[in-house]
């Protein structure tokens, strides 16, 4: 290898680790760029809900019950005369909050379980992954419903239920990376230099398996949004009157014949938020893991 080759290799390696490089790559890819823009937009709406929502989402106005979309209520009013747009904006805040917390909790718990399971194959084969398998033997929403049956319907409990449901999926992915990475030379080298096991696991292995992890995080975010909406729709998630996209849809169901807007707009909001995350996730996967291009 000539010196210039080594230099180029080093530059490529540096590029491989730079977040800036990936952000640029994402925005260059048209679809994932759109996904990123949509996601940032939804997050901004969620964060600025108290300032941008035109009305109080809980303010009832019986005179304007089921008012159609128009000047006063841009997206119409619901059965209690509450402004639908404000409820959708506050619903975005709730969905983002739930999605974000589920992603954080599943990533923490899943990484820890995955690291231990991948690094200590003996415990793994007998205990951890069998338990994870068992959790994955339940369809996600069924397990979430079961957990919500023993907890009170509440958004924070929905976070707990969904985190339990999705942690095994993250653990499995981290475990896969660990199994691959622990045989590599650089991990071997670090071990030979006397690095402690926690240092090996967190500094060398986890830090190098963030690519599949971050892809998984975007998809879990998307699943969590749909799952929270589904739970709230059947009455096992966020209880009314607090606005959640799912419970707005459940209330709108009664008025479908006279007020289509309560059914159409909140669902469209879910679809847009999830679409943004899916586009960004697909783009990330194409950039980070070209072998998986086009699958899923």
């Amino acid at each position, binding site marked *: 290898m000539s010196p210039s080759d080594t230099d180029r290799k080093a530059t490529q390696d540096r590029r491989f680790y730079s977040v800036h490089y990936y952000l640029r790559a994402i925005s260059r890819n048209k679809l994932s760029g759109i996904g990123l823009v949509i996601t940032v937009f939804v997050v901004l709406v969620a964060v600025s809900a108290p300032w941008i929502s035109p009305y109080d989402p809980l303010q009832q106005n019986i005179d304007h019950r089921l008012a159609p979309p128009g000047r006063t209520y841009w997206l119409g009013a619901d059965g209690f005369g509450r402004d639908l747009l404000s409820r959708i904006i506050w619903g975005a805040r709730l969905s983002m909050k739930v999605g974000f917390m589920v992603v954080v909790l599943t990533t923490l718990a899943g990484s820890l379980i995955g690291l231990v399971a991948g690094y200590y194959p003996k415990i793994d084969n007998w205990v951890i992954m069998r338990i994870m398998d068992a*959790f994955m033997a339940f369809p996600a929403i069924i397990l979430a419903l079961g957990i919500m049956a023993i907890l009170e319907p509440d958004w924070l409990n929905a976070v707990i239920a969904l985190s339990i449901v999705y942690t095994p999926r993250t653990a499995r992915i981290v475990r896969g990376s660990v199994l691959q990475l622990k045989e590599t030379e650089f991990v071997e080298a670090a071990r030979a230099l006397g690095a402690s096991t926690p240092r090996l696991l967190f500094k060398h292995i986890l830090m190098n398996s963030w690519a599949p992890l971050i892809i998984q995080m975007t998809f879990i975010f998307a699943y969590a949004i749909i799952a929270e909406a589904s739970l709230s729709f059947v009455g096992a998630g966020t209880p009314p009157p607090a606005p959640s996209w799912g419970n707005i849809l459940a209330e709108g169901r009664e008025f479908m014949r006279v007020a289509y807007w309560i059914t159409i707009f909140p669902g469209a909001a879910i*679809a847009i938020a999830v679409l943004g995350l899916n586009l960004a996730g697909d783009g990330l996967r194409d950039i980070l893991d070209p072998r998986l291009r086009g699958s899923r």
Partner: protein
Amino acid sequence: MRTFFARRLLLMIPVVLLVGIITFLLIRLIPGDPAIQMLGLDATPAEIEALRGQMGLDRPIYVQFLIWAGRVVRGDLGHSVFLNQPVATAIVEHIECTVSLALLALIYAVLVGVPIGVVAAVKQNQWQDKAVMSFALFGVSTPSFWLGLVAIFIFAVYLDWLPSQGYEMIQDGLGQWLRFITLPALSLGVQTAALIARMTRSSMLEVLRQDYIRTARAKGLLERVVISKHALKNGLIPVLTVIGMTMGQLLGGAVITETVFSLPGIGQLVITAINNRDYPMVQGVIMFIAVIYVSSNLLVDVLYGWLDPRIKYA
């Protein structure tokens, strides 16, 4: 093949056992006394004591589990306090609706997903491909229960073609059954159709690059024959994996879709049970669905090996 099947069946045992333990512990994790939770605060001490005895709450937890597991193995899933009937009987009464919904959704998804996936692969990067991929993206991003609501709005409220709720059993007439089940199955199937289309496309693209396809073309076979006879056979194998993976989504989605269309299936059963704190029912239904899911995955595994002789059963 037979040993493979036997081994897979044996491997199912620990999973089902753990599923049982998780289901059992779920209900035992209820804060406070489950008997009081179930009966409400105005229950008399005698009633509570009777229910505690019936549920075996006065014994050590492992004994409770063994008794429960022993009953489950014999098909006794407990007694629903709210419906005053055995849980197993209630499940049998409601299962037809859920299974027919999930299966019909799967059939729709395969009938739509496979052909459009093939078209997208054959016309890679042309408008047909882009249209299919857009549909697929839309399909995986839209919650099926909302699609159900929109379908009701269009086909039941606006066009008045199909009923918006209710159900007729299949034995009461195929036509009636289809009238009631079509909208729910279509809205539930869209997401699976999208996943199948994506998988068919990528696996067909892979297969179309293989040497034996080039050989077939070089022999002068019609492109149609190359695609349908040579490529499709191998291209469809990975699609089976997607079908296995989405069985859980379909079963779970069916539960939510049933609420949208007021269908009398397992979903209605479990959601009513949750609202009424009917824990034996919740436990029974969850256990039952998990076992169906695990079994359907076993079936897919076996089919997989049967269709692709290259897969070793070691």
